[in-house]
């Protein structure tokens, strides 16, 4: 039997057995197993009742089907509401700052020569090569009251303000500022990379065309580059905002204990209080808070696309 006919038979067998379908299904299977299933477990747990058993929850008892007490508590105890607001606020601020810093960097990356571009991209990714925890600890050192960094900032501050307002050091550690600063530092690459991928695809002749038609460089940016980079802005912002709002390590290490953050609340409920159902309820609510607006956006965006397609035909 010739080789080609054998490989043809092999391919036929593959096709008949639906291997293609399996290949396509793999990511869905992955998501079902490692996202949907755990999420259903967490969701179920959020309706359970806390018991002093192992695992520390059970169904039945006073609430045979569903125990919605935990969700009620989300609204009655202002700790949770404050935690949500702090987390969303911090994440929003960090996302905006990442955008303000990341957009010019991403745009710059598309404008430099190819050899420089690779070096600079490497530098953007380089921090990932060291442990995330280590980098947060490094920031703790930098922000501490006796660090050279703090002294430098204090010196600059004292130089600007009148002498009666002079400070011995700038209190940075354990503040909301510290959380936002370290979050921006940590998540900046997640903003730069999708933005770069988007901006890099834009045809430079569009900019030239706008300039040719009478637009000055800023107008070219406003009319052409900015609107065409909206998908990149959305992708980068989601990649920063979503993990930043559930962030645990940064607020725990550099944040203020008087400002509750949702990541810490979940962790505390789960580990210290051993209230698994409450922790689950907090987590489910956070997910809904983040995902539902996104789904609404995707729905309307898809509809707009459909409408445009229909108009065309």
């Amino acid at each position: 039997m010739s080789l080609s006919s054998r490989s043809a038979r092999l391919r036929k067998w593959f096709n008949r057995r639906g291997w293609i379908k399996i290949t396509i299904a793999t990511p869905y299977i992955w998501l079902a197993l490692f996202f949907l299933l755990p999420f259903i477990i967490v969701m179920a747990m959020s309706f359970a009742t806390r018991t002093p058993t192992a695992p520390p929850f059970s169904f039945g008892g006073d609430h045979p089907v569903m125990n919605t007490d935990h969700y009620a508590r989300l609204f009655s105890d202002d700790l949770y509401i404050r935690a949500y607001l702090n987390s969303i606020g911090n994440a929003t601020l960090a996302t905006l700052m990442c955008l303000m810093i990341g957009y010019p960097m991403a745009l710059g990356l598309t404008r430099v020569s190819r050899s420089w571009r690779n070096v600079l991209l490497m530098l953007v990714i380089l921090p990932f090569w060291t442990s995330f925890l280590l980098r947060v600890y490094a920031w703790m050192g930098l922000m501490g009251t006796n660090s050279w960094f703090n002294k430098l900032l204090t010196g600059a501050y004292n130089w600007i303000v009148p002498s009666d307002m002079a400070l011995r050091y700038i209190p940075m550690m354990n503040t909301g500022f510290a959380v936002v600063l370290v979050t921006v530092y940590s998540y900046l690459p997640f903003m730069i990379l999708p933005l770069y991928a988007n901006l890099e695809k834009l045809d430079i002749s569009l900019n030239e065309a706008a300039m040719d038609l009478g637009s000055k460089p800023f107008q070219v940016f406003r009319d052409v580059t900015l609107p065409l980079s909206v998908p990149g802005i959305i992708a980068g912002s989601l990649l920063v905002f979503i993990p930043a709002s559930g962030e645990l390590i940064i607020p725990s290490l550099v944040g203020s204990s008087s400002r509750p953050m949702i990541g810490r609340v979940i962790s505390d409920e789960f580990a210290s209080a051993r209230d698994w159902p409450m922790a689950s309820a907090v987590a489910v609510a956070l997910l809904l808070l983040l995902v539902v607006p996104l789904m609404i956006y995707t729905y309307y965006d898809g509809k707009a696309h459909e409408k445009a397609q229909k108009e065309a035909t």
Partner: protein
Amino acid sequence: MSEPATNIGAKVAQFPRAAALAEKEPPFIRVEGVTKRFGSFTAVSSVNLEIRKGEIFSLLGGSGCGKTTLLRMLAGFEDPTEGRIFIDGQDMTDLPPYERPVNMMFQSYALFPHMTVEKNVAYGLKHMDMTASQRADRVREMLALVQLSDFSHRKPHQISGGQRQRVALARALAKQPKLLLLDEPLAALDKKLREATQFELMDIQDKTGTTFIVVTHDQEEAMTLSSRLAVMDKGRIMQTGTATEVYEYPNSKLVAGFIGSINFFEATIRDVRDDVATVDAPELGATVEARAIPGLSPGQPITLAIRPEKLTISRSKPEGPNAISGKVRDLAYFGKDSLYRIELPSGRVLSINSVNSRRVGENERVADWEDAVWLSFDPSSAILLKD
């Protein structure tokens, strides 16, 4: 959009060639000694050009010949290393693109994908001193000019390639520029559409009176479109002239070879009398007569060039001075004409294009494979080239 071929001839006759009209006016666009270097590479090398108002002028050349760089310098996207550019008497050299009365139609069309056809055409107008209704009128007028009025609310990805090309044209013309630059305007269209669009482009140029400079690598396109053209190579302009001048009277081997096909032979001048030179061409196996060019002297080595369609093929030895014998090596039948490849006794192979003006059968052709034939040409058809 695509129109029957019979209309095309009529259309050509309709509009007077702008060059003939404007012959006496001072040049509208003047390129003076323009050179552009990128590092050690010279893209454009001391180019001088004078283009009159209302012309369609083509810059013709292969890739990397500097034609696009020259166009980009006219648009203001590149600064000349040396030299100056004047448009309508004004020095444009140091003006940025957004301050020049020049618009460009990009090879990729560069339509704004997030704007409708209408918004694309209107884009340049918002920088002009016009009322909203004047702007709307201008957009409507432009869309009517390129026959796209029904597509004004479509986005660029919702229309065909030919329609996109016309949107790009309308957008570039909307500001009524003094000069329109077209970078390979027809390259992205298929052959049929390209032919129809060529004439449409000429029609629009005639209606608006705008001066066009077209960059193209397609010599047929350059010859049909333009009133005059410049052949470029390695950053230099080799020859400037009308299509006829450049095709029939090329000034160098390079131009002769670039425009159309041609047979070259090494030869020596034997004698020059009035406007006829007698030339020894050992490769042709004959001494032939050719139209003389200035500055020839006996014994001088020269290149003899003959275009394939200027040669006549026959079975018997023809009358006249320029008769060459050979053998049919190859023949290709294209319908309207045939291409013969004739092997000469010297071993050289020569191309002949012969129009099939009579309807004949397979066995009645002038010549067939391996036939011995005679070739002849008129002395005035032979081109002598010094380099």
